[in-house]
């Protein structure tokens, strides 16, 4: 019982190989490939798809969904979900537009801030229901999805706010470009980078991953779980509020039905972006790429003169293709890594790899399309 022997030396590093591994393991690889395919093929068929004006439109189109996807990621990482975002967007869009139309004296930044606060409040309701009252997130936010929309309807009472009612300075926010990049896309980009950095480099951000990865262990590790979950929901709500004003500025015509049903688009973007729906892994970059892919598909179909009746089907098929591609790539990469490690035992062991075939006993099986790549989300 006293023999002291070590296992084979495992921790050695080999710079070049490690870099290749790193690239191969990048969580978002599959979706980047899918994006490349989409733009490549569409551009080849119709080069106007790749013109500056067209790319600018696609960026603009994806800005709002991308921002919602970033917010949703915060929540999904903690093993929760927020289905009520679309209703929050609607509420905030209508509220903002109404203030702008009926009280032209209120400065635009104040209105924007107000919408963000409104969204944050909605998020706080969700957060308290989930974090403090322990209502499963899906149930809670399905409930508030109906409830917030109900408030929106009651508030609007059939009223519509039109472009002519809102100040020109506000509407131009939805269309203006800075250095050739649309302002809305820029806002979304800044949000993306800030949230991405926070998730990767702040203790609070890492704690969100920890909570989603193993909620009970998070409590034992002394993480203030409740506070973090509420914070995630509040942040998501605030982003949805911001997305709401962006919506009003972009589309100009606002009534109580704004963004109805968009929650599924957002969840789809997040899932396609490789964020594990059961929490603990995935990045906001992936989610944003997912949003870009989804809007890219819609735009491509519109440009490709695809028969209108077939669009929905093709949209669904491409979405599935993207998920499958991502998964297959992940399996291939993992299998290749395992084989190589076998022939080169000095490589550190990575036992999180998925098996060649899905296997319920395989830790990766239950997780997202491609777990078993990088461990931490950044």
């Amino acid at each position, binding site marked *: 019982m006293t023999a002291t022997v070590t296992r084979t030396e495992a921790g050695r590093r080999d710079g070049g190989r490690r870099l290749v591994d790193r690239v191969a393991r990048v969580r978002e690889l599959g979706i980047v490939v899918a994006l490349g395919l989409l733009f490549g093929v569409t551009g080849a068929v119709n080069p106007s798809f790749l013109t500056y004006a067209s790319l600018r439109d696609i960026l603009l189109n994806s800005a709002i969904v991308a921002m919602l996807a970033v917010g949703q990621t915060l929540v999904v990482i903690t093993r929760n979900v927020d289905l009520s975002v679309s209703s929050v967007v609607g509420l905030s869009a209508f509220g903002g537009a109404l203030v702008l139309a009926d009280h032209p004296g209120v400065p635009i930044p104040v209105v924007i801030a107000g919408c963000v606060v409104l969204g944050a409040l909605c998020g706080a309701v969700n957060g308290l*229901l989930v974090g403090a*009252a*322990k*209502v*499963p997130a*899906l*149930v*809670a936010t*399905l*409930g*508030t*999805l*109906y*409830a*917030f*929309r*109900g*408030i*929106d*309807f*009651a508030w609007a009472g059939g009223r519509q706010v039109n472009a002519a009612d809102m100040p020109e300075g506000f509407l131009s926010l939805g269309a203006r470009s800075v250095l050739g990049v649309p302002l809305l896309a820029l806002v979304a980009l800044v949000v993306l980078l800030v949230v991405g950095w926070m998730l990767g480099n702040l203790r609070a951000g890492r704690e969100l991953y920890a909570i989603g990865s193993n909620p009970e262990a998070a409590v034992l590790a002394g993480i203030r779980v409740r506070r973090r979950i509420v914070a995630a929901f509040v942040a998501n709500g605030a982003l949805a509020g911001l997305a709401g004003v962006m919506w009003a500025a972009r589309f100009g015509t606002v009534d109580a039905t704004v963004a109805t*049903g968009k929650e*599924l688009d957002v*969840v*789809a973007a997040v*899932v*396609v972006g490789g964020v*594990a*729906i*059961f929490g603990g892994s995935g990045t906001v970059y992936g989610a944003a790429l997912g949003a870009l892919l989804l809007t890219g598909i819609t735009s491509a179909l519109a440009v490709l003169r695809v028969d209108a*009746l*077939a*669009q*929905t*089907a*093709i*949209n*669904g*098929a491409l*979405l*599935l293709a993207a*998920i*499958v591609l991502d*998964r*297959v790539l992940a399996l291939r990469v993992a299998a290749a890594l395992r084989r190589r490690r076998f022939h080169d035992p000095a490589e550190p062991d990575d036992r999180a790899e*998925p098996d060649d*075939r*899905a*296997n*319920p*006993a*395989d830790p*990766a*099986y*239950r997780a*997202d*399309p491609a777990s078993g790549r990088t461990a931490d989300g950044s």
Partner: protein
Amino acid sequence: MAADLARTARRWEGLILVLLVGVSVWASLGVDGFANGSNVSFLLLDTTEIALMALTMTLVIVAAEIDLSVASTLGLSCAVLGGLWNAGLPIEAIMPICLLVGALCGAFNGLLVTRLGLPSLAVTIGTFALFRGLAYVMLGDQAVADLPPAYTSLATASIGPIPLASVLVAVLAVVAATLLHATGLGRSIVALGSNEEAAYFAGVRVKRIKFWLFVASGVMASLASLVYTFRYASARADNGVGLELAVVAAVLLGGVSIFGGRGTLPGVLMAVLLLGVVRNALILADVANEVLNFVTGLLLVASVLAPNLGAVWRRRTSPQVEGKSVS
């Protein structure tokens, strides 16, 4: 922890039952036109499709998966029915084909989930669009309405105040409840929903069971499509848009855990009825639609919140039962 859950579940069904009875009594006394045969009959009939799909959705969610494509499968099946009817096939031949289409849709979901190990939420969001899109491809913008009266009247027929369609629901509910709560397969479903890996280690054929659950879900969706088409005498590609959320909401209200492994069919059926009764009574009472949605949302949240708050409150007041009691 788990003992607590089990007790909550028991309490939960109790809660839903109390609510159901309470709302019904209130509506019978306070709302004109609620407590008469034709309204009750209509109310029951109106929950048919949701009830049918909720049966299999319960099984799927207990197995820790989800099927968001049910409403689209329903739409596709309707479109197939319409298309074949236009092509002149006899309706008796079309119906089995529709069920087959539903089975294929379910099998497609099932294969992607079990063979590739993809999360079912992602897969069925994809097929949600795909199946609906195929319905449009199939039937385009046509509406097929000249369906055989023998069948359309059968779909709305009733024995006393009980619609025939509800009898169908009742029979299938008994089958599903027996399956889930009294057979080995049901035990396996609960186990794999709670801990898939342990179930696999215990020899449960995890993948096979999941696959067939998705198939069942598809078949049930197309069965619901038959009821839907005949009931409304209209086959269109956009039939049943948005029903999936209603089904999921009913299942969750019925106390099924979205994380799998927990939930009962009686609870779900009561929840379906509760939602139907509330809607019907409120509409009859001329409550505005926005309030209706608000109430639906509130009901969903409150049904979970109430027992939780109770537990939190008891913990505050007496630290003695802070942990979980075994008794």
